[in-house]
């Protein structure tokens, strides 16, 4: 919220982020303040520790997976552009999406991209498939110690059975999309950003 924070963000940067993510000018400055306040090391980038310092995120059963989603493959730091790009997935879908992205066909907060974000939460090794093991691990994160291995295993098996159409015992992204076609993804994967 200090003037130092907003002075480090240039107008050209704001315009680019606006085009890429669809956020408004004031939303971007507000989120920049938030980014700046999370950045304890003051090096213009966030590390995993910076995220883990957020209390509500630390108690979220899937906290680590969500934090991981911000960091591209093999990197330990995320800059403001990357931060905004990931947050853009959660922008609500407006009825009149006028700002069609010029560089790529689909806006970051489209249904497909929202689903892809969720898919990546399950896909631990980023190989575009959710294996039985990965599903088990994520399930274990969500239930803690309260369900036995066998029960959890049968839940995982049942889920894969219902979703898997090509018989490779893994869930691909298209199978994932098919399973969730009746779910209101746009509403469930959107959060309200103040203007």
């Amino acid at each position, binding site marked *: 919220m200090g003037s130092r924070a907003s002075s480090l963000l240039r107008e050209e940067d704001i315009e680019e982020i606006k085009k890429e993510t669809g956020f408004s000018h*004031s939303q971007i400055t507000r989120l920049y303040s938030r980014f700046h306040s999370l950045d304890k090391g003051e090096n213009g980038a966030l590390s995993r520790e910076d995220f883990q310092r957020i209390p*509500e995120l630390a108690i979220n059963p*899937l906290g680590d997976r969500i934090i991981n989603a911000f960091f591209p493959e093999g990197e330990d730091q995320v800059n403001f552009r990357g931060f905004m790009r990931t947050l853009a997935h959660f922008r609500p879908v407006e009825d009149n999406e006028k700002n069609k992205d010029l560089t790529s066909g689909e806006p970051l907060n489209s249904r497909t991209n929202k689903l892809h974000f969720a898919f990546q939460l399950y896909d631990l090794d980023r190989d575009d498939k959710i294996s039985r093991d990965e599903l088990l691990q994520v399930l274990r994160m969500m239930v803690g110690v309260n369900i036995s291995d066998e029960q959890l295993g049968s*839940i995982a098996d049942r889920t894969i059975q219902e979703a898997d159409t090509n018989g490779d015992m893994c869930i691909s992204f298209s199978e994932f999309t098919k399973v969730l076609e009746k779910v209101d993804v746009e509403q469930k*994967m959107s959060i309200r950003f103040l203007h």
Partner: protein
Amino acid sequence: MESYLFPFDSLICMLLGISFTVWFTLLLVFIIVPAIFGVSFGIRRLYMKSLIKLFEVSELMLSVSVILQRGSAEPEFDMSDIFYFCRRGVESIVDDEVTKRFTAEELESWNLLTRSNYNFHHISTRLTALWGMGVLIRYGFLLPLRVTLAFTGVGLLVVLTSIVGLFPNGRMKNYLSDKVHLMCYRICIRALTAIITYHDSENKPKNGGICVANHTSPIDVIILASDGCYAMVGQVHGGLMGVIQRAMVKACPHIWFERSEVKDRHLVAKRLSDHVADESKLPILIFPEGTCINNTSVMMFKKGSFEIGCTVYPVAIKYDPRFGDAFWNSSKFGMVNYLLHMMSSWAIVCSVWYLPPMSRMEGEDAVQFANRVKAAIARKGGLADLLWDGGLKRGKVKEVFKEEQQKLYSKVLVGSSEDRSRS
């Protein structure tokens, strides 16, 4: 017929009389007398701790019902279950002091205070019952109590400052004026059930300086003035405010400007510098942002106060939005409406940090100085997110919270798979 009513009449009168006496005695002993002497029984802190427990319980209940809302027709584990945790996680990342009050629609009522946009759908009977009880307590008990206190506080302020004004100028008068102001502001604090933690009191503003604070609500003044004595600055109002202003200025020199004078920047600057130059006068309290902000635009610290060239004592005020909405949307609500909102909230919880004094450096102009002060205040207030714990041992409670969520989710999975095996 009438003779039957008489005994009841006097009985009712007696009962009313007794209850009023009891009421006022309790009020006096537990609230007003401590306020006069500046001591505290710790009742408000206890209240705050129990409120926090209550909020946690209701938030748990709310998360259960949200998870349970999936319905029984679907298979027991849905790949979309992840959405709930995912969204909560990202909300906490985006979360800042203001956004916190606007979390997803389902969770809007979690602190049992549904205000405008009342879309309360029946989530669970227990929650509704809790909320209903909350309404009863807040409007039936807390509100009348607070209104009584507010009237007492303001009334005493007007009367006592006028009396002090009759004294000849001198040390005695200053001493009395300080005491009177502090006492009345403390009563007003209790009228709002404000629970304030003051940090770094060694940096409290001294005479001959200007105290600069960030402005988030009209009650900032009361919060600061109940811990120290300041000279206020403001426009002359009519009505009740005017009466209060005229009374206050009799006891000690506050700076009230006529509407016409406010436009003349030089006049304003001159009066302020004259006040500051007089070492015997109290430090001036200024909110450089001007009127209340609604936190959606970047505020410019008005440079006028920074041109005067004296020591500036920055103060950061930070509210905890869980307990009550301290922000004033002046375009929507008038002052009275706002005060009613305040008084029917659970409590106002805030922290005040006194920052070390700052002066304008060589080669720095007023705008740069203003920005430097503003950055220091923002930095301090921004850190509050992580410093909120204070003595509340929040860390310990939180671990339990994560396990609770896992337990609840497991119940949902296992519960429905039991149904399945039965069928």
